[in-house]
């Protein structure tokens, strides 16, 4: 373990997560290894949201009274905090959505919503191509299928190698002059694979295509900087980064957002409204129709504070160490096949695996009886599972509050599962 991760005081962190003291059965403490699905919230996040509600709650951007001013400050302050967290050059590039899924749909719909006044770059039409990958979460696949269906564009995808990485061999033919968008995940929620962002950005730039990065799994677990990544749009979820449900983020380059047609329409996103026509506000307001997730933005800002106080480098090191521990442990168990790269640090802390002859539901059930909460199924990445010939997998994912002892318990739990089913007649 590195010096960094040795300093990381997991016990002190655990004290911030009251839910971790919960018992599932009288003698079964909770071992929560499903942060990849949704994270738990430290009390700092809950407290920030409650404090806002008890002192400053009001509608934002619509009122002139003092409470509205305080609420707007809280909300816009949260936007600045998140801009800072992801390295956005300006808070005006941060759009609050309800989750990462809406952020991705926003881009997909807006690219289909343009008219002749929309720059060609921001308008997907018949004959255009959209490129995704075979390892996408449904959230970054189905919206593009639907955009293709609505517009007559063609959907193509980058396959995944047997080594669980993107197969860039044919990138030169997959990316063409017709490619308008390359949408891909930063980190697979199943494999743990971290994708080569720079190579894909370069390929996109060469043909003037937009890049859309699904960072729902990466941003909470590693130092993350949109400016350094070079992509055009980024989607995030609050609830995967110690923040509330009901909030997500779309980051986009300002010059693109400035010309992108709106998606959801209604209050607070307009410039002028007549009965028969409307004009729209500048970003980010243009993309935030209706009353936004105000207290949730405050909670998400507190989550950024919390993560930054721990330090993203140290969080990454901590989770890397746990991932390596899990991979090594699982590799020693007969009948376990890891669906993902075998070694950290070329990958991040989601460890999915298959237990020969055992359905993931049954594996998860035995682990659950031990208090170990892992996710089972296709993890919203069905085509990827089909690619590896499995119906589903069992996935453990690690968080800031995960201990080495918990990872040990998990590895033993998997071994126990195999013994358990083996022992049945």
């Amino acid at each position, binding site marked *: 373990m590195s010096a960094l991760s040795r300093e990381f005081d997991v016990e002190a962190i655990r004290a911030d997560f009251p839910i971790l003291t919960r018992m599932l*059965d009288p003698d079964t403490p909770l071992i929560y290894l499903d942060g990849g699905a949704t994270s738990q919230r430290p009390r700092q996040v809950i407290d920030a949201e409650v404090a806002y509600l008890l002192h400053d709650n009001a509608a934002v951007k619509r009122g002139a009274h003092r409470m509205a001013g305080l609420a707007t400050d809280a909300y816009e302050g949260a936007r600045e905090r998140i801009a800072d967290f992801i390295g956005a050059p300006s808070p005006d590039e941060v759009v609050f959505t309800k989750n990462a899924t809406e952020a991705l749909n926003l881009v997909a719909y807006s690219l289909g919503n343009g008219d002749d006044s929309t720059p060609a770059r921001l308008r997907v039409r018949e004959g255009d191509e959209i490129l995704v990958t075979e390892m996408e979460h449904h959230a970054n696949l189905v919206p593009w299928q639907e955009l293709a269906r609505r517009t007559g564009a063609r959907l193509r995808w980058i396959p995944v190698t047997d080594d669980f990485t993107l197969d860039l061999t044919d990138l030169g033919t997959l990316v063409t002059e017709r490619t308008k968008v390359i949408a891909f995940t930063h980190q697979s929620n199943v494999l743990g694979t971290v994708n080569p962002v720079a190579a894909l950005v370069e390929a996109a730039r060469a043909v003037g295509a937009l890049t859309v990065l699904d960072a729902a799994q990466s941003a909470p677990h590693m130092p993350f900087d949109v400016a350094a990544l070079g992509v055009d749009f980024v989607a995030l979820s609050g609830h995967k980064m110690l923040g509330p449900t009901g909030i997500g983020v779309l980051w986009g380059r300002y010059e693109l957002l400035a010309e992108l047609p709106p998606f959801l329409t209604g209050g607070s996103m307009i410039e002028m409204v007549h009965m028969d026509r409307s004009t729209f506000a500048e970003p980010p307001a243009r993309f935030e129709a209706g009353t936004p997730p105000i207290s949730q933005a405050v909670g998400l800002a507190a989550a950024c504070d919390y993560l930054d106080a721990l330090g993203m480098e140290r969080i990454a090191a901590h989770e890397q160490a746990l991932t390596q521990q899990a991979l090594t442990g699982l590799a020693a168990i007969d009948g376990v096949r890891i669906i993902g790269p075998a070694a950290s640090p070329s990958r991040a802390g989601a460890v999915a695996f298959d237990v020969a002859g055992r359905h*993931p*539901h049954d594996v998860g*059930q*035995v682990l659950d009886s031990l208090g170990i909460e892992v996710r089972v199924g*296709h993890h919203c990445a069905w085509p990827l*599972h089909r690619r590896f010939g499995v119906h589903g997998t069992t996935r453990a994912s690690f968080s800031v509050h995960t201990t080495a002892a918990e990872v040990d318990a998990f590895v033993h739990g998997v071994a126990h599962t195999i013994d*358990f089913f083996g022992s049945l*007649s």
Partner: protein
Amino acid sequence: MSNQLSALYTELVIEHDKRPLHAGLREPFDTEVHHVNPTCGDEITLRLRLAEGGERIEDISYDAVGCAMSRAAASMMADLLIGRTIEEVAPAQDHFEAAMRSRGRLEGDEDLIGDSIALLGAAKFPARVKCVLMPWKAYQAALVEARMLGA
């Protein structure tokens, strides 16, 4: 082995999972349905063959991909239903579904549902209730279709 697990993976469940009854897809059949559990990707294809003017279940054959619970449920169901009249089995179906959805509050009546009583341990696990009910939902859909064709 914890009590919790032993209540779920009973001997009967394991037996049906290992050696499922009436499995495989057979001819002849009146209707075939394909159901998916979208959260886990489990699938069942089920064929229904009726007799006596649509009143009796002559055959149920199926191909099920799923966990031990759902596979056992399909096997137990087929074994319970084949050869009986639709009217006869309706109460079993209602009772089983109610018991499965009761979170363990409703005890099962073995006279009505036979081996399926062994599945009721799953009633406390909402995610597993779906697994267990999937074959029954498929049977129901196949029946509705058969009746529409018949009508």
